[in-house]
């Protein structure tokens, strides 16, 4: 670590903006962004699977509330949702005394809630579309084998729906990463927050934001690569047999 610091200090010698201290801000920002995006995507995914199934239900009273939820969260800007959850929650009477306050007091958890609800809404719609697109033949075949509705869902519909949803879901992950840039408006020091801090401190907009953009680009490349790998593995059976 000591050596790394020395090497870094040598490398940055004579650089006014990118001192070890500012790089530490960017590093903290990278950690915050990654945590925020990863956790919200994970929880959003777990929420979205049952919601997508309910969304396709035949019963109006199951289907409609889910539709209403996705409609509201896809129909309003994420920034507005974040403001409502971060600043709005404090107007709930007695919230400061409740057991939730230690969590809501931090900027991280309101942001996590907003991002999770938002991505869950989009993911629900992506999965719902994929489930609906399951070919009737597959379902009829499952029926013919005597599978119950639940078993058909688990064994036939969901696995093929996941595969179909993969490219669209990959886009949602990248959108979520980019959308997380608004976290800095509620004082979170994510990558953009670090860039805004450096910009305000050194009056150097280009250096500060281009560096942040470069970090986002690297993250996006990693996500793209991951999804390309997954698609190759999971969608191998759809590839033409001849050629590569």
């Amino acid at each position: 670590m000591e050596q790394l610091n020395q090497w870094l200090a040598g490398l940055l010698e004579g650089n006014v903006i990118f001192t070890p201290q500012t790089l530490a801000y960017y590093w903290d920002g990278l950690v915050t962004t990654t945590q925020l995006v990863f956790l919200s995507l994970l929880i959003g995914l777990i929420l979205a699977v049952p919601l997508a199934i309910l969304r396709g239900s035949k019963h109006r009273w199951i289907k409609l509330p889910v539709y209403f939820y996705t409609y509201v969260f896809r129909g309003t800007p994420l920034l507005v949702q974040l403001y409502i959850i971060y600043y709005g929650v404090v107007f709930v009477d007695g919230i400061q005394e409740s057991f939730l306050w230690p969590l809501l007091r931090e900027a991280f958890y309101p942001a996590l809630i907003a991002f999770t609800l938002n991505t869950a809404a989009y993911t629900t719609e992506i999965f719902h579309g994929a489930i609906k697109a399951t070919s009737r033949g597959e379902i009829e075949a499952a029926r013919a084998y005597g599978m119950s509705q639940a078993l058909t869902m688990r064994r036939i519909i969901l696995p093929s729906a996941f595969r179909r949803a993969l490219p669209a879901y990959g886009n949602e992950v990248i959108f979520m990463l980019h959308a997380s840039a608004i976290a800095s408006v509620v004082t979170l020091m994510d990558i953009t927050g670090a860039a805004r801090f450096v910009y305000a401190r050194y009056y150097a907009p280009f250096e500060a934001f281009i560096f942040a953009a470069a970090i986002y680009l690297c993250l996006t490349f990693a996500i793209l690569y991951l999804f390309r790998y997954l698609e190759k593995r999971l969608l191998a059976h759809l590839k033409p047999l001849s050629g590569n």
Partner: protein
Amino acid sequence: MKKLLTVSLLGLAMAAGSAQARDYDHVRFGVDVPYEPMEYRTPEGELTGFDIELGNALCEEIGVTCEWIEQEWDGIIPGLLSRKYDAIMSSMTINDERRATVLFSDPYITPPSAWFAPEDTEIDEPSTEALDGMTIGVQRGTLQDNYVTDHYGDVADISRYSTADDMVLDMEAERLDIVFLDFPVGKSTLLDSDEREYKVVGEMITEPKEYFGDGFGIAFRPRDEALAERFNEALATLKEDGTYDEIYKRYFEE
């Protein structure tokens, strides 16, 4: 012949000299209104504020009459150079960029920054120990931000806001333990708030200069050195005889 030329040149120079070093018995100030509490109008329409009162006191000390001329901020220096008025006294921070075009008096005030916390706070005096683990609110990119980041960045959590309003909202929500603000802004937003009781913690802070700057000065046309000198002397007198403190207290203390 040569002598005559010298004499007439001398005379010309003297005439020009006397035209330059005009003796003012009436000074017109340019001011951008409103900027509470430095310059603003009362509900009755009367112009008042720290700048106005101090400016009037200075004129009285020098023995000239004064007049205040309102001018929008972005045209305030061109207005001075085109003789719309003779000086600017309008919360103008002294800096090198402006020094190139105008002549500044000595700084007459450095607007203080102050720590504000709820009435029942445990912090008596801001220090590295007292602020350990606390959440400090500042406005992003301000001199207060730089000060807090350099002094307490290692021990405390710093929350940076785009506007002072957002910060006040989070203070009312009990998300912040203490904020560091321009004193006048903090006074009008926190001390005068109805929601919770707040107080100033510790001393007003105006030092060190590398963070808090040179303060506000009166700007003159570069050739009016004599006039600037008279104002500097008057300012020193007012500071000595207590008039300055009296005006200062009226605007910057509870």
